[in-house]
């Protein structure tokens, strides 16, 4: 009964890992409670997005991830 958190970009540095399993199910408050304060602070920023199984959430507060889901934490991009 786990959800896989995936940390992208600088969030991976803050997390100290690229990914981490946390207990399922997982909602927004649960997520904030599972991660360290600096990560939670980044995650609250508007420009940090969340995707569940490759689909972006329009509203992070609506996070509702079940067992087996992959929840990606996406800081602002900087491509090309």
């Amino acid at each position, binding site marked *: 009964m786990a959800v896989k958190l995936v940390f992208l970009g600088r969030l991976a540095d803050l997390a100290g890992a690229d990914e981490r399993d946390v207990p399922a199910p997982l909602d927004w408050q649960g997520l904030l409670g599972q991660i360290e304060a600096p990560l939670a602070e980044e995650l609250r920023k508007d420009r940090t997005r969340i995707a569940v199984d490759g689909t972006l959430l329009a509203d992070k507060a609506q996070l509702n991830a079940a067992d087996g889901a992959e929840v*990606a934490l*996406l800081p602002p*991009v900087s491509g090309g």
Partner: protein
Amino acid sequence: MARTVHLLTEPFNPGAYVGPFTNAHPGLGGVCTFVGEVRGDAEVEALELLHYDRLTLKGMEELADQALQRFDLMGILVVHRSGVMHVGEPIVLVSAAAKHRRDAIDAVDFTMDHLKSDSWFWKREKRSDGWHWIEPRARDHADLARWG
């Protein structure tokens, strides 16, 4: 109307993609191509681009589709590297074939602006004191805003 999109984790030769792309569109009026490379910078030892498998390629494909929809093109080619790169290595290649040059040039401009600041890549530079994450420049956001 062809769409070719590649996300590569190994170095690539732009000519090896542009030649076949151009040849695949007989009768075209013009081809515009942009190749971005790791810029020479005495302080930067290496550059790393990271992507997320479940979003990055899909996002590039959607961007190419937007360009095909927005401009009158015969085809578009988008190639982007991920991984660690050094000075002079190609990072990105966008090529657009069209009957008229304005569509080809504008499609490349549009696609590059979106790849630079609105696609799922995270960039960091290695300097003498270690790795540093890079945020898009204000200029990149301004470029993107041109497209409404």
